[in-house]
């Protein structure tokens, strides 16, 4: 059920990429897609009523959620950050050159 929410989030992102013409909105869409996937990964490692995967003095390791997806998602978030930053930088540059944020007017390369 909760995976379905991920799917909705993913679809929202995709909708934004496909229908919005503004570069910045497309970037936001990409970020949403990224987060949907990250969320899904986190949920994969989640277990009901689990506790945080931190080793503390005197506690056994049972019933903690899977820590691996969290580590992995952290990395994925960093990558997403880098990509988003680059996308924004290039979007700004595109605005400088083309004078517009409209993706449909940015089509010099074709054929």
């Amino acid at each position, binding site marked *: 059920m909760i995976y379905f929410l991920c799917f909705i989030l993913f679809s929202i992102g995709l909708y934004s990429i496909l229908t919005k013409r503004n570069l910045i909105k497309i970037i936001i869409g990409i970020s949403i897609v990224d987060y949907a996937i990250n969320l899904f990964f986190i949920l994969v490692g989640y277990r009901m009523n689990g506790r945080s995967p931190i080793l503390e*003095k005197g506690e056994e390791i049972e019933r903690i959620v899977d820590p691996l997806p969290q580590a992995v998602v*952290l990395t994925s978030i960093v990558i997403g950050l880098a990509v988003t930053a680059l996308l924004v*930088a290039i979007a700004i540059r595109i605005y400088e050159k083309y004078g517009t944020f409209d993706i449909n007017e940015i089509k010099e390369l074709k054929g």
Partner: protein
Amino acid sequence: MINNRDSQGMSVIVKTITRLTIGLILLYGVYILLHGHITPGGGFAGGVIIALSFIHIMLAFGKNVALEKLNQTWSKIFESTGALLFITIAFLGFFGGVFFNNFLDKGEHFELFSAGTILLSNIAIFLKVGAGLFLLFVALVLFKIGGRK
């Protein structure tokens, strides 16, 4: 130091609050960084928080003040140094036989100075992430349409 009456930046309230909290944010970042191997956090989180403290200054007082504190050249150097440091630590693992080997003494559990090279790696990551994030922000802020230096 940081001048409240500088014409640039936001209102006096924001500036004052910023001046008060900025040290705390920085300190919190350092805490997160240093306890990365025993509590949640680590180099990345600490780096982000510390970068945020500088970004905070920039938001409140304008870019000149912030760049006085940490200018681009230095952040670039920090960034590259961080990455190099990390790789150096990994290379030093060869002393223990394997790449990335944790060759230092592991120490006592849950102590600050334990876990061998993890702390050092965290510091390297902090340098990379903190400086990198700050640079990113600066690069996006300083960019002017139509005008390139």
